[in-house]
């Protein structure tokens, strides 16, 4: 098939199909066509037509994270979801919203904010995004969350219903429109963070939260891994109900900024901010507005596709050891990655600047993974999960990608493959983008 003739099946399935242009490449792989479905039915018809012709499909929202994951093994049709951009329902009294996948985070925040409500996810800045705000579908598919994951969790914790289109075009729903619901399997959890490899997320229902009446940030500069770990642990263990405990370190050897977010009633927040200053120490300051580094990519790097962005997860008690291990691995590899993230939740992002030697990045990653594999101290040694952490490369330049496994060891991979085979037996949904070549 050539790129300038759109097969009749695709054209009949969707009114807007175009030949792909270079800017439609997915992690360097050129698709042949881009389909722009405007409705659930049209999206389903595209998927069915693609399946009938053995065409591999990659869903796309705003494209802010299209460089994440491995390049697809095959990519014939990009399904652009931006025309499915309606907030279908905002039941303010029920704190629930039902949206199409192409709604952007900014657009939804505008609608919900009018009613004093929010989808409580801090989506990291778009970085080198072409199109600005990420879509809800993209956020769900990549499972990303920012500082307030400590209090509100990640997309999988807030999604209460999903309408997805299977690889064979079948429209399928799970969950519902009520927060409390245990009827049937919760496939929203499965689709969250699945990188478009199980089906096309078309609509989602979320539980909402009220916007806090007031917020305060208590921050301090701390030196040394042990002191950082102690400050973070003290903030997390306080009775002051922090919504986030973040750290940010632009460069090795420099101070680590520790920041605590408090949310709630204005009077209560002010009182608690004072108490939190007592917890963090005399040098700490309380502000109403968020510090410039808050929730951003490490070291303000923007997390653009030129560099390498790594997400590490660990049990929070290991923070001090993990910070030391990062420095040891980076020192050995001759790198100076910036780091930032939700320290109390045990999730950090590391950013290696563009142009770093691919071999050094690979060595750094190996060092990190070895150190994380050792983190299983305590009474439960041998009885808990065999690994208590992971280092996943979210994106890396092609020359780095060639040397590394983006995902590292993943527990339960055999079951994940079995799930993939059931949902997408032809392996036509974003093939090869996910862990273990899924």
């Amino acid at each position, binding site marked *: 098939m050539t790129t300038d003739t759109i097969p009749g099946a695709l054209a009949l399935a969707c009114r807007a199909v175009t030949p792909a242009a270079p800017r439609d490449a997915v992690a360097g792989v050129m698709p042949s066509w881009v389909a722009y479905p405007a409705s659930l039915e049209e999206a389903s018809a595209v998927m069915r037509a693609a399946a*009938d012709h053995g065409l591999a499909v990659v869903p796309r929202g705003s494209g802010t994270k299209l460089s994440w994951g491995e390049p697809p093994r095959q990519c014939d049709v990009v399904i652009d979801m931006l025309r499915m951009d309606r907030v279908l329902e905002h039941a303010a*009294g*029920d704190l629930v919203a039902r949206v199409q996948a192409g709604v952007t985070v900014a657009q939804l925040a505008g609608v919900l904010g009018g009613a*004093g409500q929010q989808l409580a996810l801090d989506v990291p800045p778009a970085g080198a995004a072409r199109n600005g705000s990420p879509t809800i579908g993209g956020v769900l598919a990549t*499972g990303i969350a920012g500082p307030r994951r400590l209090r509100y969790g990640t997309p*999988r914790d807030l999604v209460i219903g999903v309408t997805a289109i299977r690889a*064979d075009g*079948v429209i399928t*729903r*799970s969950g*519902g429109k*009520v*927060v*409390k*619901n*245990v*009827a*049937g*399997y*919760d496939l929203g*959890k*499965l689709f*969250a*963070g*699945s990188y478009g490899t199980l089906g096309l997320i078309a609509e989602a229902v979320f539980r909402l939260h*009220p916007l806090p009446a007031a917020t305060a940030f208590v921050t301090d500069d701390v030196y040394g891994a042990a002191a950082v770990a102690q400050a973070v642990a003290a903030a*997390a*263990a306080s009775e*002051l*109900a922090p919504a986030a405990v973040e750290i940010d370190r632009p460069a090795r050897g420099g101070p680590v900024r520790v920041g605590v977010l408090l949310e*709630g*009633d204005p*009077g209560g927040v002010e*009182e*608690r901010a004072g108490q939190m200053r007592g917890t963090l120490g005399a040098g700490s300051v309380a502000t109403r507005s968020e510090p410039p580094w808050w929730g951003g990519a490490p070291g303000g790097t923007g997390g653009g596709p030129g560099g390498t962005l790594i997400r590490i*997860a660990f*049990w*929070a008690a290991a923070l001090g050891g993990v910070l030391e291990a990062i420095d040891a691995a980076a020192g050995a590899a001759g790198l100076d990655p910036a780091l930032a993230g939700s320290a109390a*939740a*045990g*999730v950090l992002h590391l950013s290696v600047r563009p142009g770093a030697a691919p071999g050094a990045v690979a060595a750094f990653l190996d060092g990190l993974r070895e150190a994380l594999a050792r983190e299983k101290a305590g009474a*439960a040694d041998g*009885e*808990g*999960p*065999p*690994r208590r952490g*992971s280092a996943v490369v979210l994106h890396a330049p092609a020359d780095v990608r060639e040397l590394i496994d983006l995902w590292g060891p*993943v*527990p*339960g991979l055999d*079951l994940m493959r079995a*799930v993939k*085979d*059931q*949902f997408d*037996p032809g392996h036509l949904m974003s093939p090869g983008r*996910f*862990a*273990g070549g899924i």
Partner: protein
Amino acid sequence: MIETLIPRMVDICGPSGVISDPLELRTYECDGLTSHRAAPALAVLPQTAEQVAAVVQACAAAKVPFVARGSGTGLSGGALPRTDGVLIVMSKMRRIIDIDPVSQRAIVEPGVTNLAVSTAARPFGYFYAPDPSSQIVCSVGGNVAENSGGAHCLKNGFTVHHVMGLQIVTPAGELTWLGDGTGASAGYDLLGAFTGSEGTLGIVTKIVVKLSRIPQAVTTLLAAFPTTGAGGTAVSAIIGAGIVPAAIEMMDALAIEAAEAAVHCRYPAGAGAVLIVELDGPEADVRRDSAAVRALCQEAGGGEIREAADPEERAVIWAGRKSAFAAVGRITAAYIVQDGVVPRTALPRVLDRIAALSAAAGIRVANVFHAGDGNLHPLVLYDDSSPRECRAAEELSGAILDLCIEHGGSITGEHGVGMDKSKYMPKMFGADDLETMQLLRCAFDPAGLCNPGKVFPTPRLCGEVPGVHRGVHPLVAAGQAEQF
């Protein structure tokens, strides 16, 4: 047939860990839903994860179905044994392996009771947030299977939000981990999909749970209202004001009357409804929210409003609510408890409809419910010696679930589908939806031996090719259309 498995099971679990005597097996013939009964062909009581794996391997090799059971408090027949199968009783696996307060994690075995986790974490200043009413007895493994909730899940979320890792035995008998305890492990969120799968995807052998900080302050308010409608207005006003209480519970007049008779909880006499609102968190915020809640209750027509000054008074307020099911049991020969959910804003309409249905059927309904999240627990009272009443109660129960679905809700908020509600699943989900859910089942349990017959009204043979392209479309066959 199953007798041939006994020697192998004795090898694995020891002689005292295998029960084959029919009389003894009757102990296990039902869970908390006593209307469904079936004695297992064999029961085993493993003590380690490796034993569970070996038991499942033996069942898989012999193609014998198996069902896991925790404390047997489930209310949907999820742990109902198979008469042709093995019941795997998890209650001997009750070690609390580790409490890690800095990581806010605990590692426990599945037979540990829900409350025991909080008790073990308390010295460190932490608790385990999901709190089903049966928490003194129910097991954490059972909670994982059912994705259990409880009165405080309005603010704190359900079991799925507090489980960070699971060691499971797959239906093929392999030990594996889902999630690494971090809450951000790589790959598909099988941990999330497994939680709440009602024992149909495997058996949990270890659980990493998240621990939550014990709040600085807790206050519990009891407000009396003339009607459930007025109480519902107060609930909407509280939520509308941006307050997220830890719990908002409501009881109607009949439930109050029963509770009063049973536990003397001293609820205001003659109230048409009482609301229990619990607020927790930092002291300053709780103080302010509590004043706001009082004002909102008064505006909504609340009469007497009490505030528990200490843990003892709090316990008295909760005693009425927590004993409600048992208390209602004392004023009726039998009752059915339903677990439907409606959007919170639909509560007043749905309660009116339930009252109308109840009057028309001549069957009393007592309402006890988690008002904050719209999770109803209507108790349908009937005389089980009257065939007419049995039928009418069953019909009324079904009609209440229909109402929930009609209002965009769910047939179950926390009790699970189990054996009891699988017949209602096609009312809530389409055939394609159910078929897609079963894809997950087929990935985990292609042989269909792991708690079969639960959740789904009809089993799916995993060899079938999914999708709509089975055979030739009739129009194509008739030459009236073309597929491409």
